[in-house]
C-alpha cells in the first residue's frame, strides 16, 4: 500500500493504471460523492458565504443528478449553548460580516439569561479586556523590541533567535546580580556605614599565622599600574566589594534577628545556579515537547519545511531572493541526505569495519588535539601565576599585561585555530551532512568550555600545592595565596574583560576592514573570500563561554554578574551594528526552531560545566582564613551543617535523616519505579497512536472503495435512465415509471453485488 507503487505526475496528466486510490475523474474534477461527505460539508459551511456562493454555483450542475443522496448537514454555530463567551466569536474563520451577524444572534439569545449568569458573563468579558490591555501595555516595555524587529525583517528568524538569546542572557544576569546584591552586598555595605551592628569574623587562635593578608607596598606607582590594576583586578580593586575577600563579616544584627552572612552567601550561590537551571529548562521544554509525541524525533520534517517554510515577516526583496535560494538549498540538501542515508544503510560489512576504524583513529586524533590544548592552558596558567607571584615588573607594561592575560590569550588562540581543523578532519569520517555539523559544533563547544574548567583545576593545584608541607595547618598554600578566592575571582574577572575586548576587536579590526576591502577592491582573492556572513554557531559559543565564566566567577566576585549584564548589553549593540553594516544575509539556512533548542542545550552544558568547579571549591577546598565570610569554617559547605545544628532537635533529626543512606536508597528505588511507569505509559500511548493510524488508513480505503462503487453504479443507472427517456412518446407513463423502477432496483442490485466483490 505504499505510495511508491503508484507513480504519477499531475503535470503530465497521466494516472497510474491502478484505480484503487483514484478518486479524481478523468478531467481532474473531484468526485461529486466526495463533496457530499459530512466532513467536506462542514468545511464548506465555515468558508465565507461569498466563496460558498461561487462554489455552490459550480457544483450545482454536478449535484443535479445526485441530490437524492445528499445528507443534511448540521451546522448551527449560534445554537452551541448560550454560555459561549464573546471571545470565541473571533476564533471562527468566517468573514467579519458573518461574525457581526453571529454576534447579533448571540446577543438576542443572551437577552433572556438569568441575572447572575449575565453578571458572570459581563465580569469575565471585562476581565479579559483588562488582561488584553495590560498585556499590550507591558509589551511596550520589552527591551529592544524595535531593534529585533528590524533585524528580523532583513535577516530572517534564524539570526533573530541569536539576539533573543542575548536578551535572555541580559535578563538572567540582571536577576543573578540582584540576588547577589540584595542578599550579600547590601547587608555588608549597610553595616560598613555603621548604621547597624555587625560582628566581624575572628580567626581561631590556631590559625593565626594563616590570617596575614597585608597590602604589599608598591613604592613608586606609575600611572600605567592603575591601568593594569583596572584590567586585572589587582591593586586598588582588590579590596573592594568586587571580590570575595572584602566580605569579612560573620553576622549582621538587625532589630530582632541575626542575619547570618556566610549562610546567605552560600545559599545565594546555590540559588542562582538553581534558578538558571530552571529557567533554561523551562525555555527549552517547549521546543522539545513536540518531538516526544511523534514517533520520529526529528525537528525538521518535510511538512514543517514546506508549509511553514516561508518567513512571513520578510519585507526586503533581496532577503526574499536569498530566502528562496536557501529554501531551495535546504530541500536539495534534504534529498541528498536521504540518498546518503540509503547509501549508508546499504554498506557492506567490510566497509563498515573500515569506517569504524577510521573513525576510531580520527577520534583519537581529536582527543590528542584537545589534550594538547589543555596542556597548553595548564602551562600558561602556571607560568602566569609564577610571574605574578615573583612580582617582577618589566619595563614594558604591555608585557606585564600580556603575562597576566596569558591563560585567556591561550584559550582564545586555541579556539580560533581548532574549529577549521575540526572541519577538515570530519570530512574523513563519512557522516551525513547534518550530523557532521552537529559533531563539529559539539567538539568546539567542549573545547571552549572545558578550557575554563582546566584553568580552574590548574589554579587549585597551585593553591593546594605545598612543597615541604607548608600548608598543613591551614589546608592551602597560605604564604603564596593568603586569600585564594580573591585570586580566583581576579582570574575570572580577567577572562571576562578579555572576552569583551576580543568581541570589540574582531568587529573593529577584522569584520569592518574585510567589508571595506571586499566592497572597494574587487579582485579574485576578495571574490574568493566573499563578504562576511553572520556565523551563528561561533557567536553563540562566544556568549555561552562568557556566561559560563560569569556563573563560575559569581561565587568569587559577587559583582561579576553586573559586569556581565553591562557587557552583554553592549555586545547587543556591537553585534547589531556589525550585522547591519558588515554582513550579508546567510546563504545557508539556520532553522530557528532547532536553533533555539541548540542554544539552550549549549547553555545547559555550560551550566553543568560551571557547577563542577564551584561545587568542588565549596565542598572540598579549605576556605581561606585571612579573608571572606567563611573564616571560621573548614570548608564553605560547613556553614550548612553548622546552621542545622542550631535548629531544634526534631528538625535536626529529620534533616540528617534525609541525608543518610536509610533514606537515600528507598528514595532512589521509588524514583526508578516512577520512571519505569512513565516510560511504559509513553510506550503504550505510542502503540495506541500506531493502531489508530492503521485504522484510519483502513477507513480511508473503505471510503474510497464505496465511492468508486457508487460512481460505477450511478453510471449504470444513468445509462438505463437515458434509455428510458429515449422510449417513444406513445409509451404510457406507467411503462416509463416501470423502466425507472427497474433501473432503481438494478442500482441497488449493483451496489449489493459490487460490495460482495473483494477489494
Amino acid at each position: 500500500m505504499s505510495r511508491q507503487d503508484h507513480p504519477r505526475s499531475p503535470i503530465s496528466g497521466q494516472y497510474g493504471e491502478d484505480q484503487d486510490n483514484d478518486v479524481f475523474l478523468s478531467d481532474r474534477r473531484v468526485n461529486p460523492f466526495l463533496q457530499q461527505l459530512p466532513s467536506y460539508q462542514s468545511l464548506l459551511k465555515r468558508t465565507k458565504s461569498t466563496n460558498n456562493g461561487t462554489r455552490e454555483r459550480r457544483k450545482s450542475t454536478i449535484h443535479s443528478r445526485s441530490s437524492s443522496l445528499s445528507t443534511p448537514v448540521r451546522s448551527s454555530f449560534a445554537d452551541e449553548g448560550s454560555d459561549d463567551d464573546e471571545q470565541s466569536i473571533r476564533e471562527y474563520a468566517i468573514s467579519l460580516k458573518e461574525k457581526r451577524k453571529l454576534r447579533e444572534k448571540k446577543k438576542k439569545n443572551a437577552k433572556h439569561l438569568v441575572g447572575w449568569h449575565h453578571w458572570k458573563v459581563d465580569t469575565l468579558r471585562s476581565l479579559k479586556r483588562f488582561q488584553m490591555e495590560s498585556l499590550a501595555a507591558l509589551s511596550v516595555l520589552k527591551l529592544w523590541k524595535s531593534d529585533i524587529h528590524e533585524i528580523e525583517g532583513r535577516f530572517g528568524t534564524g539570526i533573530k533567535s541569536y539576539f533573543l538569546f542575548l536578551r535572555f542572557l541580559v535578563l538572567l544576569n540582571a536577576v543573578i546580580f540582584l540576588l547577589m546584591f540584595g542578599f550579600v552586598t547590601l547587608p555588608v555595605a549597610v553595616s560598613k556605614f555603621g548604621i547597624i551592628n555587625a560582628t566581624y569574623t575572628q580567626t581561631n587562635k590556631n590559625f593565626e599565622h594563616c590570617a596575614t593578608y597585608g597590602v604589599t607596598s608598591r613604592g613608586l606607582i606609575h600611572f600605567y599600574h592603575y591601568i593594569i590594576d583596572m584590567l586585572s583586578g589587582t591593586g586598588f580593586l582588590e579590596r573592594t566589594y568586587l571580590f570575595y575577600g572584602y566580605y569579612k563579616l560573620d553576622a549582621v544584627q538587625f532589630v530582632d534577628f541575626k542575619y547570618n552572612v556566610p549562610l546567605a552567601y552560600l545559599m545565594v550561590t546555590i540559588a542562582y545556579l538553581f534558578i538558571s537551571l530552571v529557567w533554561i529548562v523551562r525555555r527549552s521544554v517547549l521546543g522539545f515537547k513536540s518531538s516526544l509525541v511523534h514517533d520520529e524525533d526529528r525537528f525538521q520534517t518535510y511538512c514543517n519545511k514546506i508549509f511553514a517554510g516561508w518567513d512571513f515577516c520578510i519585507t526586503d526583496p533581496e532577503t526574499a531572493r536569498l530566502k528562496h535560494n536557501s529554501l531551495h538549498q535546504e530541500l536539495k540538501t534534504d534529498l541528498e541526505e536521504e540518498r546518503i542515508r540509503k547509501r549508508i544503510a546499504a554498506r557492506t560489512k567490510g566497509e563498515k569495519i573500515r569506517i569504524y576504524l577510521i573513525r576510531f583513529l580520527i577520534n583519537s586524533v581529536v582527543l590528542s588535539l584537545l589534550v594538547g590544548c589543555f596542556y597548553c592552558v595548564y602551562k600558561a596558567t602556571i607560568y602566569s601565576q609564577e610571574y605574578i607571584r615573583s612580582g617582577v615588573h618589566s619595563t614594558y607594561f604591555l608585557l606585564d599585561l600580556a603575562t597576566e592575560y596569558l591563560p585567556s590569550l591561550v584559550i582564545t588562540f586555541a579556539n580560533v585555530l581548532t574549529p577549521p581543523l575540526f572541519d577538515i578532519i570530519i570530512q574523513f569520517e563519512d557522516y551525513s551532512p547534518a550530523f557532521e555539523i552537529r559533531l563539529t559544533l559539539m567538539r568546539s563547544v567542549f573545547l571552549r568550555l572545558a578550557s575554563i574548567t582546566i584553568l580552574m583545576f590548574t589554579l587549585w593545584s597551585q593553591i593546594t600545592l605545598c612543597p615541604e608541607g607548608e600548608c598543613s595547618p591551614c589546608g592551602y598554600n597560605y604564604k603564596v595565596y593568603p586569600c585564594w578566592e580573591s585570586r580566583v575571582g581576579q582570574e575570572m574577572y580577567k577572562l571576562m574583560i578579555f572576552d569583551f575586548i576580543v568581541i570589540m576587536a574582531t568587529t573593529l579590526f577584522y569584520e569592518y576592514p574585510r567589508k571595506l576591502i571586499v566592497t572597494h577592491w574587487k579582485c579574485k582573492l576578495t571574490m574568493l573570500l566573499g563578504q562576511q556572513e553572520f556565523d551563528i554557531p561561533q557567536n553563540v559559543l562566544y556568549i555561552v563561554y562568557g556566561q559560563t565564566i560569569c556563573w563560575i566567577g559569581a561565587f568569587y566576585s559577587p559583582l561579576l554578574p553586573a559586569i556581565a549584564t553591562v557587557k552583554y548589553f553592549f555586545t547587543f549593540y556591537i553585534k547589531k551594528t556589525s550585522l547591519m553594516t558588515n554582513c550579508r544575509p546567510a546563504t545557508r539556512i539556520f532553522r530557528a526552531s532547532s536553533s533555539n533548542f541548540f542554544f539552550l542545550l549549549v547553555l545547559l552544558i555550560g551550566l553543568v560545566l560551571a557547577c563542577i568547579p564551584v561545587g568542588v571549591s565549596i565542598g572540598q577546598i579549605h576556605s581561606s582564613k585571612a579573608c571572606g565570610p567563611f573564616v571560621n569554617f573548614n570548608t564553605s559547605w560547613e556553614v550548612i551543617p553548622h546552621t542545622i545544628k542550631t535548629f531544634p532537635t526534631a528538625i535536626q533529626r529529620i534533616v540528617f535523616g534525609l541525608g543518610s543512606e536509610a533514606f537515600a536508597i528507598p528514595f532512589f528505588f521509588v524514583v526508578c519505579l516512577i520512571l519505569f511507569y512513565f516510560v511504559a505509559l509513553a510506550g503504550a500511548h505510542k502503540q495506541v497512536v500506531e493502531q489508530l493510524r492503521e485504522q484510519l488508513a483502513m477507513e480511508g480505503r473503505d471510503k474510497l472503495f464505496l465511492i468508486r462503487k457508487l460512481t460505477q453504479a450511478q453510471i449504470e443507472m444513468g445509462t438505463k435512465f437515458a434509455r428510458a427517456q429515449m422510449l417513444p412518446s406513445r409509451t404510457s407513463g406507467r411503462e416509463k415509471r416501470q423502466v425507472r423502477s427497474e433501473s432503481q432496483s438494478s442500482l441497488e442490485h449493483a451496489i449489493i453485488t459490487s460490495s460482495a466483490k473483494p477489494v
Partner: protein
Amino acid sequence: MGQEVSTYVLPNEEIEEYQVLTFLSRQEIISFHHKMFMELANSEEPHHGNIRLSSRIVSSLPELKVNPFRDRICMVFADEDGEFSFDEFLEMMSVLSDNAPLKVKIEYAFRIYDFNGNNYIDEEDLWTVILRLINQNELSEDEITSLVEHILEEADLDNDNFLTPAEFENAIAKAPDFFNDNQERHFYCH
C-alpha cells in the same frame, strides 16, 4: 494630499466592535485604518465604508510584496469581486497578527495553500507550493515528486493522496516552525 481636510477618525464604538471581532489591539486597529486610507487609497473619503482597495494594491503592502503566496492570501481574504473593504483588510491583518490562535491560522493556511480551490490540498497544490517556494531555482521533476511523496507520507493519514483540513491541521500543529514558541514568526507579521 488633502492635509487641510480633517482626517476621518474611527468612532470608539466601532473600534471596540473591531476589538471584539478581531485579534487586534486598539493601537493596531487605528494604525491600520490610517495606513489603509491615508497611504494606500490616497483619499479623503469621510467614511471608510465606501473605500475599496483592489487586490493589486493590497499586494503591494511591504509585508506582502515579496511573499510568494500573496495572490492566494488576497484571494482568500477578499470579497467576491476581489476587492478589500476595511473589514476584509482588518480580517487579514488580524489573522496574520501575533494574537491570533493557532487554530485560526491553520484554517486560513489551508485555504491559502489550496491553489485549485477544490477544498483539498492535493498533489497539484503541493507542486505549486514547492515551485513557489523555490521561485526561479531549479529542482528536477523527480526531486519534486519525491518531495511531494514525503509530504504525503508524513501528513496523509488515510492514504488517499490528498490532505483534508484535519490531516493538514494534524501535520502543521506539530511543525515547530509554525507556532509561536516564544519567538517564532512564521505566518505572522506586524
